[in-house]
């Protein structure tokens, strides 16, 4: 049972028997929030893999990440993205949630989903702030966005809850899937 995604995606040496499914969820069509709660502290890192589309009338949607239900301005993010025409970079501080990559809304071509792979390093630590890495995007055959983003949560608490929220306050479709994995360090 080889490998783990965060390691593989960075081309490091592979580790065996260390990547486990914790939980998964499917969009309901009536909520814009997916919650993974009571996350055990027994892993070294977490990874979320998702395909997502929302009910927003727009063609674009974004994934928002909130940790431990902290709604205060404790989040910072940086990003680099390409929209098919140009590359750009950005930063924002004092945010109330982490900002992820683009997926699709109902305004996009039917059945086209955005995807994201989200890594949360050393999530169970109690002596360091937490960093999230996003890699994701969508292509709609003529539109779309590819991006990488990092989020910083200015809090040293162990992460025990993750909310995946629609930026446009829309609902995740029933074709949206979200899976949480744990990665062991030893």
């Amino acid at each position, binding site marked *: *049972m*080889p*490998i*783990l*995604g965060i390691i*593989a*995606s960075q*081309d490091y040496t592979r580790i065996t*028997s*260390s*990547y*486990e*499914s*914790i*939980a*998964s969820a499917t969009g309901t069509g009536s909520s814009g929030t997916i919650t993974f709660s009571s996350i055990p502290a027994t892993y070294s890192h977490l990874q979320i*893999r*998702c*395909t997502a*589309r929302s009910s927003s009338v727009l063609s674009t949607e974004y994934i928002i990440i909130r940790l431990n239900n902290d709604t205060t301005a404790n989040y910072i993010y940086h990003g*680099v*993205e*390409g*929209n*098919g*025409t*140009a*590359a750009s970079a950005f930063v924002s501080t004092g945010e109330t949630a982490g900002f992820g990559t683009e997926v699709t809304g109902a305004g996009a071509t039917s*059945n*086209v*989903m*955005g*995807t994201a*792979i989200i890594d949360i390093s050393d999530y169970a630590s109690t002596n360091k702030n937490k960093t999230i890495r996003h*890699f*994701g*995007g*969508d*292509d*709609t*055959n*003529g*539109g*779309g*966005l*590819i*991006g*990488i983003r990092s989020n910083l949560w200015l809090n040293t608490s162990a992460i025990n809850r993750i909310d995946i929220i629609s930026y446009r306050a829309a609902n995740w479709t029933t*074709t949206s*899937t979200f*899976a949480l*994995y*744990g990665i062991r360090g030893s």
Partner: protein
Amino acid sequence: MASTYEKIATNTLSSAQSSITFSSIPSTYTDLVLISNAAVSSGAAQMLCRLNSDTGSNYSFTRLGGDGSTTESSRASSVSYMQITWFGYLTTTINQAGIANFMNYSNSTTNKTVLTRSNNAGNGVGSNVNLWRSTSAINTILLYPDASTFATGSTFTLYGIKAA
């Protein structure tokens, strides 16, 4: 909990080949991950991909890359292939490392999106998001360079990830 990241197949080339194919891919996983460490026999090339032997113009992609002095984003629409590499393309030295994520590959409701990262320390790095406009479950992955052939020693490994 059971381990959920499993090797499905691996292919190390003992001679140059124009393409490689992973076929009869089981539908029992949630995502597929393809890891490559590859080169071409001459010149330079991008690694392209087709799914389920579909040669129609049912693919498109948006890409982002950089080479140390330039960043670039562009796209292709209604083409007959996906693009796995970009600035991290294939050269005659095996220093290309790539990863392609075939997300929710076995569902039969949505079109398929494939996220890729390509790295070549001698040239640059790139990321692509590819779309295959088909709701079919993916059961075959064809990889080929857009010039030359895959060089001897190139490795390609396909993994499956299974969600709870």
